[in-house]
């Protein structure tokens, strides 16, 4: 019986357990956040290289505010987030959750499984499907199945309706997030309540209005806030679908192109990081607000072992 412990146990066990995660978080979260803000204050670009850049303070931000494209990208981003959120991440996900919990359990589960497919499908494969749906006659599915039978004029629909397609492509992925939350919330409504409202003779629509929606208040709020943030910063699907062509360059993609796209030749790291820094700031602020607002801290239990 000695005070010294053997076999690697000790007072700082927790530190060794956390160390790998800590290193990675510092290198790939903290450092990048600092770098983002730092470089946004410089004129760094391929032209200056990593050596000859200068500190220019808030000039990049001034440039953003006076840039002729700024309003365009901002308005597109707002529109894109709003439409995708309302029609898919909230609207469609709610519809699917309601329908799949209303029908037989097995079939409902099957449909939800199908709706999860876009989320797990490799993004390039998924976007490829949409490109073929939109493709020109005689190949494209949209043209073959709907446009032609109706006798309308066929086209390649991606350049014709680019905004519709970026919303569809993201929406069909985004809907599954809310779908899972909503359907598990609906299924957790006590059966007695459902029975009572059936006995009361209320119709399904009345039940939705007076019983289900009030139960979904919390998940609705959560999905709205969480998905707004992730839509605002997402650009992967758009990059693969159009790479920003046909006026589909949302703010995050604009930043990415300015800083990392090899097409433009001169990479404007300073300006690009300034664009990203705005998103990073919004991200940090909103993430902190979630944590406070949704009271994550209450989920934390105290360890019931205090030994070292």
């Amino acid at each position, binding site marked *: 019986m000695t005070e010294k412990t053997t076999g690697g146990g000790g007072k700082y066990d927790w530190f060794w357990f*956390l160390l*790998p995660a800590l290193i990675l978080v510092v290198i790939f979260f903290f450092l990048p956040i600092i770098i983002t803000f730092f470089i946004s204050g410089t004129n760094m670009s391929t032209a200056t290289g990593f050596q000859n850049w200068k500190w220019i303070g808030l000039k990049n931000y001034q440039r953003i505010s006076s840039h002729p494209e700024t309003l365009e990208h901002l308005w597109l981003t707002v529109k894109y987030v709003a439409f995708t959120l309302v029609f898919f991440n909230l609207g469609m996900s709610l519809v*699917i959750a309601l329908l799949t919990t209303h029908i037989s359990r097995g079939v409902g589960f099957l449909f939800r499984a199908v709706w999860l497919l876009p989320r797990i499908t490799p993004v390039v494969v998924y976007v490829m499907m949409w490109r073929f749906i939109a493709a020109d006659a005689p190949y494209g599915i949209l043209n073959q199945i709907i446009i032609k039978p109706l006798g309308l004029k066929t086209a390649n629909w991606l350049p014709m309706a680019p905004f519709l397609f970026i919303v569809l492509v993201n929406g069909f992925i985004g809907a599954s997030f809310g779908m899972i939350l909503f359907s598990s919330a609906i299924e957790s409504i006590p059966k007695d309540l459902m029975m009572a409202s059936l006995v009361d003779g209320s119709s399904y629509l009345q039940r939705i209005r007076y019983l289900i929606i009030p139960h979904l208040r919390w998940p609705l709020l959560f999905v709205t806030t969480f998905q707004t943030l992730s839509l605002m910063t997402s650009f992967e699907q758009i990059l693969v679908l159009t790479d920003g062509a046909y006026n589909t360059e949302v703010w995050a993609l604009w930043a990415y192109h300015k800083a990392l796209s090899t097409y433009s030749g001169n990479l404007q790291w300073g300006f690009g990081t300034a664009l990203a820094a705005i998103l990073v700031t919004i991200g940090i602020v909103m993430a902190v607000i979630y944590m406070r607002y949704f009271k994550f801290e209450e989920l934390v239990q105290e360890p019931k072992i205090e030994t070292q």
Partner: protein
Amino acid sequence: MRFKIFFSRFVPYLLLIVVTLPIIIGYVWILISTFSTRTYGLLPVDKAGRPGGWTLSNWSFLSKPEIWMVTSNTFILASGLTIGVVVVSMMAGYALSRIKFPGRKAFLSLTLILHAFPTVTLLIAIYFVLRWISVIPVLGRGLPIIGGFGYNTLGGVILVSLALQLPLGIWLMKGFFDNVSWDMERAALIDGCSRFRTWREVMVPQIRPGIAALSIFSFIQGWGSFIIPYSYMVNANRATIATYLNNLLSETAPTNYSMVAAVGLFQLLPVLVFYIFTQKYLLSIFAGGVKGAA
């Protein structure tokens, strides 16, 4: 009255089928297209546009050496990411769930903030981090197989993917550890285990379903990941299946989509197989990843 019953019975199914149609059509198309010369919509046709034209020639890409190189890269990426995320998350998740230490609450809050934080906004800055890692001797770009951990190396891509996936992984593993009996861990400590040994021999075996779920999820993520290899590997068409496919896609006219579709199905197939057989586990991630919130 009869009509009404019929109506309320079948309308939900009908509605569901209509809204789900685009997804179903997408997958049906990729299946048909892969084995046809061309497709008009979902109809397989030959070069002259006549129905028919079934062929296996789209799979000829399998004889090209590049595809096997990008496949092996993708496999290394997915496996490396999986092992890394699972091990690091299991360690950190255990500490956060079970050990009392100063600042534990702060660490937990941090994990949650990072979980909610949109990681893609950091991609530009991470480019600089990788450039710096490149400068480090050996570790930067002098390792076998993965090349190193710097810019334009597979190891760098793995490391970035791993780090960005950590908040989810840690939170998930913490949740699984939370549910293990305290008495069992106490018993192990009294039996003579150190905390590390308790973790490895007693605790980790109790959360096997969680490990399975996180592994499958991470592997699928790594296997399909595009933006990270696309951003940090210089020669995109030689990096991973995703970047290779993206390259093909941008170069190919709809006429020859069938050939691209075959590569797509090649990438999709393992994911589908995983999904079909491990749905239960995966759903626990999708539900669990947000359960902390709900």
